[in-house]
């Protein structure tokens, strides 16, 4: 990119599954509709999301994760040795997920459909966005997977993190990239900034993520949220060597995001500017000021987005927030063009 300033908007993680689509899922689970009808519904709503994003000028996105109940499901259904466990709260959100219950050795099953799902979404994205776009595949990171697992087999956090990484994520990401080579992997590692986890465990997690992403050699986003990155800035710094990893900084939870960005000395960063925990709409002017402050630190590429999956928000609010995000980024693009 040279010295050109880039400010782009992105949808990270999930968009709230449309209520009507959820009804289709329920009807399918009751046997009232066929899989074909459900599949057609998923595609219809994915297209609807893409068209909305195009209207907002958001060209970096996931497929909304409409096929996912949460960050972990149905991924864990395609992993041997795991069962869906108890409903567990997702941090401070009133959103719950089924925690992975580890019963035996982890191994990715052969029939995992996630790469095919991304391929389908990628084709749809190509139809809706005739020009440049980036599609991302959100996946839980190994540290987050291990922390939320109920471990009845490994009995060792380090071994569990390693197993999630090598037995599940690495083969899965290889499959995804062979099916959709231009996809960007979006690893969710909120636990990295969680206060309830020791630094030692976090260190192991970071080292596993580095190994994982290093072996794949493809660009990836590592999303952190709901905590202060300032506490682990020395750990995450290691992740950024090599320039393949884009770090997601939760601008709403980080106590001093500017200090963190300055200390990391990054040239590009993903900023979680839209808070998935509140219906209060972020002000465009405030976001603009915040971006300018980040750019003043020498950052050349800023990707503004939601700080965390948008599931905990009502659909109408998620839409309004994304619209504002798009406007904010477009304002910068216009400014950059005018300045030349």
């Amino acid at each position: 990119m040279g010295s050109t300033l880039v400010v782009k908007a992105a949808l990270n993680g999930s968009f709230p599954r449309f209520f009507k689509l959820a009804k289709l899922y329920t009807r399918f689970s009751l046997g009232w509709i066929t899989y074909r009808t459900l599949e057609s519904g998923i595609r219809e709503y994915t297209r609807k999301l893409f068209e909305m994003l195009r209207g907002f000028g958001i060209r970096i996105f996931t497929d909304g994760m409409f096929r996912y109940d949460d960050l972990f499901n149905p991924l864990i259904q395609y992993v041997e040795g795991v069962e869906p466990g108890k409903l567990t709260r997702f941090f401070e959100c009133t959103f719950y997920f089924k925690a992975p219950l580890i019963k035996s050795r982890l191994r990715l099953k052969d029939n995992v459909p996630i790469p095919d799902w991304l391929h389908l979404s990628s084709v749809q994205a190509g139809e809706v966005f005739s020009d440049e776009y980036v599609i991302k595949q959100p996946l839980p990171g190994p540290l987050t997977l291990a922390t939320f697992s109920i471990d009845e087999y490994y009995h060792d956090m380090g071994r569990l993190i390693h197993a999630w990484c090598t037995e599940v994520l690495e083969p899965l990401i290889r499959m995804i990239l062979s099916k959709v080579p231009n996809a960007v992997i979006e690893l969710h590692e909120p636990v990295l900034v969680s206060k309830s986890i020791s630094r030692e465990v976090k260190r192991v997690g970071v080292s596993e993520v580095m190994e994982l992403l290093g072996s794949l050699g493809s660009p990836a986003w590592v999303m952190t949220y709901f905590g202060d990155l300032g506490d682990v800035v020395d750990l995450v710094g290691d992740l950024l060597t090599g320039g393949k990893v884009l770090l997601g900084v939760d601008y709403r939870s980080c106590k001093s995001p500017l200090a963190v960005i300055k200390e990391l000395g990054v040239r590009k960063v993903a900023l979680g500017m839209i808070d998935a925990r509140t219906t209060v709409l972020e002000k465009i002017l405030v976001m603009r000021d915040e971006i300018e402050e980040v750019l003043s630190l020498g950052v050349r590429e800023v990707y503004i987005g939601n700080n965390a999956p948008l599931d905990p928000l009502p659909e109408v609010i998620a839409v309004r927030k994304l619209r504002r995000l798009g406007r904010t980024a477009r304002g910068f693009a216009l400014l950059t063009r005018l300045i030349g």
Partner: protein
Amino acid sequence: MGAAELPVLPTALTGSYPKPVWLRALSRGLKMYENKKRLKLLREAHNDAVALVVKELEDLGIDIPTDGEVRRDPVTEYLVKKIYGFKFYGPVRMWGNHYVMKPVAVDKLRYLGPILVSDYLHLREVARSRIVKVTITGPATATDWSFNEYYSSREELMFDLAKIINRELKNLEEAGAEYVQLNETSLLSAPLDLESCVEAINEAVKGVNIKVGLHIYGYSYERLKPFFDELEVSQLTLGLAGYSFKYLKVLDGINKEVGIGVVDVQAYRVEEPDEIIRAVRKAMRYVHPECIYVNPDSGMRYLPRAVARRKLKSMIDAVISLREELKRRGLTAIPLRRTSTCP
């Protein structure tokens, strides 16, 4: 009215019971009517559903039924509909394909009048049981399940909710209710200061002279233990079966009446009476049998009705057997306690 008597180890429903399938279908079908007519028909259907659920519970042998919360959607929607200052933006995903109407506080909250009194009066009318229980979401959980666009802090919102709940509890008392339960299922997981939550709960029950239970659910009961004595409630109702009774030890040294959750509401497996007997016996090591109620872990809303029924049957079979043991020790009945200590 003198103190009501209950059989030792009274069995109670914690809160919700699966809605009859016909009620769900009917609710959808009624959408064709204009609002006033629809609400009238729905009220009648809800009344019938309550009568059915209560009869089912009583026939199974439950001593203290609720109305199964069949009129309500989960958590807060029913509560805030009669409180000025809230609005809704639409359904919010809770997990999988389950959505709730999560309210948004957009103005200073104001109590507009009784919320549950007519529901209680109907329950009282259809129940044969001497005691019935009315459940209401507590201030911490109601705050957790609301968005806040007005108050400067969530704690401020919580204390206004506590004052409103207090007025509702007093109205229920005036209407003749003898046993209410604050549902505080978010108490241990909400991003709220626990000490403030305890203060808000006490604010909600201030000056209320009927039995007030507090239902909590989670694995970190130890966090609440330092506040057990401070809580001005007559009973703590805890979900324990879902955690394989690992946290029973939290009851060690407690001087409050407890409702022990003996069936897991998240699993379809039906517990054997023997498992339940073992758990209650273990609880009796820490709590005098006079101070123990037996109930499901939490609301049974998400279970298939047949599974819920079988779980309750197991629970009641276990209690019948335990009562025989206690009868030999001369313990057959207990009073309905209103005090915050037991025995």
